[in-house]
């Protein structure tokens, strides 16, 4: 049982004209096995929340705290956060030319497990995870994210999540740019990992479409850098009808 606790989180970015505040006090607790949908209009700070929890150097924490099972996450380096059990599936996964998917996955697994996975079982593990996500085995030999289609990039993110076995995963607009088939495959992958590993999930999305495949336990509406309304799955349905207009300041 794991618990990610975000309290009063304030985050800014350094710009030419000084610090610009993006997150204005976010409170959120995610337990193992729970799915929290974070929904909100573009520019509301959803991605900033995801990236600042993962430790992206662009963001400066100006207040509040983030703990995983009581341990301060904000004090950790980016790789330490992953070792502690956090995973961020990125909206725009980065290309790393010349580094094969196979090499990348193995290096990450070695770092997280503290020892190199046994070649025999590892190869099987990767193959199986790939086939569940309907990925071509030839994928392993390609450079990380280089020349991947939108759907391939997202599948590759979920593949990593499946293999690296985090405690809490943040999915940043994993549904964006996916056609219906890809969305279904990716969603099934997320549900499978949640089931098998009792994963806690922060599901960031602009649309309700993905919530038909991944059922949220809680829905949080994000606007102006904080959570402005919370509820159950029914809140998502209301958003589907009425949109975000009521939350955006005139």
């Amino acid at each position: 049982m794991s618990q990610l606790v975000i309290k009063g989180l304030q985050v800014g970015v350094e710009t030419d004209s000084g610090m610009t505040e993006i997150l204005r006090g976010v409170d959120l607790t995610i337990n193992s096995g729970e799915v929290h949908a974070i929904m909100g209009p573009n520019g509301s700070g959803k991605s900033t929340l995801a990236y600042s929890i993962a430790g992206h150097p662009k963001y400066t924490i100006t207040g509040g705290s983030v703990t995983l099972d009581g341990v301060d996450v904000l004090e950790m380096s980016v790789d330490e956060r992953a070792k502690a059990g956090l995973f961020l599936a990125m909206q725009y996964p980065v290309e790393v030319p010349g580094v094969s998917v196979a090499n990348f996955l193995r290096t990450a697994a070695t770092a997280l497990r503290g020892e190199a996975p046994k070649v025999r079982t590892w190869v099987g593990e990767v193959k199986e995870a790939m086939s569940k996500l309907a990925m071509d085995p030839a994928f392993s030999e390609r450079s990380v994210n280089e020349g991947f289609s939108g759907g391939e990039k997202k599948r590759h993110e979920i593949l990593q999540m499946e293999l690296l076995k985090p405690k809490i995963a943040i999915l940043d607009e994993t549904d964006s740019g996916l056609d219906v088939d890809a969305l279904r495959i990716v969603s099934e992958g997320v549900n499978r990992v949640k089931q098998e590993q009792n994963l806690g999930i922060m599901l960031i999305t602009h649309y309700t479409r993905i919530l038909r495949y991944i059922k949220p336990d809680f829905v949080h509406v994000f606007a102006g850098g904080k959570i402005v309304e919370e509820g159950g799955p029914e809140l998502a349905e209301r958003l589907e009808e009425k949109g975000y207009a009521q939350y955006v300041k005139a």
Partner: protein
Amino acid sequence: MSGLPTNYLTPTGREEAWRFTPLKRLNGMHDSATSVIDRISIELVGSVRTGFNIETVSATELPPKSTTEDVIIQRVRATASKVTHLKIDKEAIVSEPIFLKRSAGVEKEFSRTVVTAGAHSKATVVVENEGAGSIGEEIEIRLEAGANLTFISLQEWNENAIHLGRHHAIVGRDANFNSITITVGGSLVRLLPTVEYSDQGGSAELLGLYFATDGQHLEHRVHVEHGIPNGKSRVTYKGILAGAQARTVWIGDVFIRGNAEGTDTYELNKNLLLTDGARADSVPNLEIETGQIVGAGHASTTGRFDDEQLFYLMSRGIPMSEARRLVIRGFFGEIVNKIGIESVEERLMNRIDSQLAKVGGQ
């Protein structure tokens, strides 16, 4: 002793072709007042000669087919009395790579080599440059119609070597020239990987990689001369610099002459600076005299580590030092993995690793 007729050729460093090169470090090889010996410095590794032959012939018997304005190469041509001729038989498919080993002696020396790829032949030639010494050399590579040749030049010199060379390909009708130039050693290396076409339908791919650490000057002056219609060229050179006095120069001259309709060319140079004080010059230069072409482009980037790449790798639990190593190895690997000879690829990556370890990989 009146050196006037030749002395005026000695570069002063103000010439466009020499403005990046520290002439003081050439050991006088550019200076017509310095004597340089005539010695064959290249030999075949092993004894198998199936599908090809190698022999030494007199320079008058095998004069250069190309012209050059490079002073060093003019001196090489004037000095070399003999030429090593590697001749791949017409229609021969040579499945194993042909290794040529070059070693320099203690004296300054010049040498000439000609590689002839017979019509419709297919072969890979690897020149391995190792050890110390001061060497000026020219390799003229002649591809007859339909020939397919991969030419790999590895500069794995030790830290004192001076290497001034021209590797010039003359690409015949529908011939395919692939070259991979990898420079990781040497105090001063100045290479001229150049290409011209003797007939239509020829294609050339020039790949290069250089890694300069403290004190090394590594210069590559690519020149592709499209003077014939329907030629194709692709140039990709990548460099990494580490150490305060690491210095690289990349020139990419591509000329599309007025009659070279249907030309298709693209050149790319990417440099990764790992430390402060290193300097990479990158000068792509595309001159187009006809609009009737398929495509022509160039790109050049010089920068530091991509923070987004490091963040991505680290967010998967990979520590910073390991993430950097992955990115650097990936950067090199894109070129090294094209060699296709596992033992050579491994040797190069190991050398790169150990050089990186020395400079701390920062």
